């Protein structure tokens, strides 16, 4: 699916040598650095309400007075001693920065100042953005700004990044950044200093529990928590299906049928209804009807799959996921899932990369950087690439397998879920080491702003349009060319023992498996013209989902796990896919 994560998070990981001044945005996790970043640079980045949204570094440009400067959004960190990959990246960045904007959560002054003091000890020129200033007011927290400035020795600017309040003042304060260079202190000395600062600048007035806070308590208690989780998951699933199906049925299908079909038929006539060009561009068209699923031309299936089958589900999935992210529900799910995830060699927070994987495996595997150990990252990444189908693949499963009956879709999902659990269990026992314990901050629930929800949705949809559609078209084109030159005739017979003997699929299905390396959605689509039984379709979909990652996921896996880790993961994938496919073939 959309590999937007790659562009923003990874390609720019090492700073280019430029003469520009580098401004680093640093702070504790989930204080709003990415929102401040978007405000400063106009570069849109994914921001959510949970710690660890940003796992790589993103850069953009801003103007400070007349000077253009580079702004870098750094992953959040609690201190300057890294505990995971994302925090290590934050530290590497600190060495390269000229100015630091320390983004501080005004509702959590004491804890945030720990990092502030450590940064001051490093002697980098700094300004403090006291973010979520409005929220602090609502919570009855009053901070004496002038006094805080005096005590820290650097400018302190109150900001509300989501509305843009204070951003102008923040930029204007950058030339006034100062580096008082505190003497390095021990842990205890630092906390004493922080205690004294907080005492002098902060006053908290009492106020009552809000309904959101009552809901916060309920969602981490066992019984209410599980009830809420089940309700949310069912609601999420129904919501995604409803929005996706509606978009297909009421918008995209009619568009294709009434606007595009006449164009296709016109060209088909023009080309005389056959020939190599007709085959590649339009595919098989019979009796004046365009079968968008089976014709497999570049302009028919090549456009129909991404726009009318996959895109609607991308939109609906990311809309719902974005809402859950911004409300701040995901860390609560991590608390609920922690015990189960430990059996799989992970801890509860690994549920966040896993859920992201249901959209696209690429950002999901990057997000495993929030996990502490290499072992956990390997298990999480392997499980995601084997058993977590991306939205594009799921859309195709719904479209093609769903036609045969919902029970077949249930078998596909049930199998993948079982594989996720059983394989996690096995990996946990086979790989040396243990799963670290959960220690996470749970953000308060926030009511999402529609504007930010839709901006984030657009960012992700745009990523899909820009990066996935060329590959989809490329995959259809490559497939047509390879067919035309007779390439598949050679490998089809060669692989027949496995494909037919073990999996019980027609030997031509190997073409779909091969194309699966480029795009899984196209690959599932290629099962359509094979006239498979429902059972074969289930086996084909499951094997395609598990067999091998698509090229975008492959590249990220290779970079994140290293060549050896990738080889191990790939060996596991192929073995497990063939075993499970063979087993399904026997059972069904």
């Amino acid at each position, binding site marked *: 699916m959309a590999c937007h994560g790659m562009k923003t998070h990874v390609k720019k990981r090492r700073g280019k040598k430029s003469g520009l001044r580098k401004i680093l945005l640093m702070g504790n996790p989930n204080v709003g650095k990415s929102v401040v970043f978007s405000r400063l640079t106009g570069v849109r980045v994914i921001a959510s309400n949970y710690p660890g949204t940003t796992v790589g570094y993103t850069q953009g440009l801003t103007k400070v007075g007349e000077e253009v400067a580079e702004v870098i959004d750094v992953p959040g960190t609690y201190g300057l001693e890294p505990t995971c990959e994302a925090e290590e990246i934050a530290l590497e960045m600190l060495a390269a920065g000229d100015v630091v904007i320390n983004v501080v959560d005004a*509702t959590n002054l004491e804890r945030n100042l720990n*990092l502030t003091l450590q940064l001051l000890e490093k002697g980098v020129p700094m300004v403090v953005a006291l973010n979520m200033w409005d929220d602090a007011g609502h919570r009855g927290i009053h901070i004496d700004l002038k006094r805080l400035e005096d005590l820290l020795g650097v400018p302190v600017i109150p900001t509300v990044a989501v509305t843009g309040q204070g951003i102008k003042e923040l930029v204007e304060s950058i030339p006034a950044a100062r580096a008082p260079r505190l003497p390095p202190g021990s842990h205890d000395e630092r906390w004493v200093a922080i205690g004294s600062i907080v005492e002098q600048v902060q006053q908290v007035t009492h106020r009552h529990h809000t309904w959101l806070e009552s809901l916060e308590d309920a969602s981490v208690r066992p019984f209410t928590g599980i009830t809420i989780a089940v309700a949310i998951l069912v609601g999420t699933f129904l919501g995604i299906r409803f929005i996706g199906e509606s978009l297909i049925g009421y918008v995209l299908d009619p568009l294709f049928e009434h606007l595009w079909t006449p164009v296709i038929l016109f060209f088909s006539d023009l080309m005389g209804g056959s020939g190599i060009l007709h085959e590649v561009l339009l595919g098989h068209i019979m009796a004046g009807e365009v079968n968008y699923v089976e014709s497999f031309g570049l302009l028919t299936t090549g456009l129909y799959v991404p726009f009318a089958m996959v895109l609607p589900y991308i939109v609906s999935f990311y809309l719902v996921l974005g809402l859950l992210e911004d409300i701040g529900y995901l860390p609560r799910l991590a608390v609920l899932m922690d015990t189960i995830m430990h059996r799989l060699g992970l801890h509860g927070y690994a549920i966040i990369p896993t859920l992201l994987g249901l959209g696209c495996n690429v950002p999901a595997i990057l997000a495993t950087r929030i996990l502490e150990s290499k072992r956990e990252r390997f298990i999480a990444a392997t499980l995601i690439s084997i058993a977590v189908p991306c939205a594009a693949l799921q859309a195709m499963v719904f479209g093609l397998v769903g036609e045969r009956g919902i029970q077949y879709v249930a078998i596909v999902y049930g199998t993948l879920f079982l594989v996720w659990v059983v394989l996690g269990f096995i990996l946990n026992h086979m790989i040396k080491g243990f799963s670290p314990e959960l*220690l996470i901050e749970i953000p308060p629930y926030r009511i999402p702003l529609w504007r930010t929800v839709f901006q984030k949705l657009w960012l992700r949809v745009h990523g899909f349009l820009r990066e996935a559609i060329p590959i989809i078209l490329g995959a259809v084109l490559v497939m047509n060319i390879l067919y035309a030159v007779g390439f598949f005739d050679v490998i089809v017979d060669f692989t027949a023992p496995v494909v037919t003997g073990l999996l019980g699929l027609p030997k031509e299905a190997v073409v779909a498996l091969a194309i699966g390396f480029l795009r899984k959605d196209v690959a599932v689509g290629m099962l359509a013209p094979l006239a498979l039984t429902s059972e074969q379709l289930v086996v084909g979909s499951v094997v395609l989902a598990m067999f091998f990652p698509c090229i975008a996921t492959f590249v990220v896996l290779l970079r994140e796990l290293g060549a050896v880790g990738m080889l191990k993961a790939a060996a596991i994938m192929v073995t497990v896919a063939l075993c499970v496919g063979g087993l399904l073939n026997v059972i069904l």
Partner: protein
Amino acid sequence: MTVKKQVNLRQMYPGQRGTVLRVDGGMGLLSRLSAMGVRPGKKITKVSSMLMRGPVTVQLGGTRLAIGFGMAGRILVELEQ
């Protein structure tokens, strides 16, 4: 003289309040916990604990944390009277 009651986070009941006494663990755990707000002298309220040795959720000032079951057993709290 009253003897104050000491318990670890697992033993506290939801809703109980107290003050963090100490954390039994190495430097790594201590600095990680203290950076997130758990250190001696801090007021702490237990919010909930999950079933089957699941994480314990606590509130410290404006921060809410979920702490793994094992770690929670190493955080000692003096209960409020």
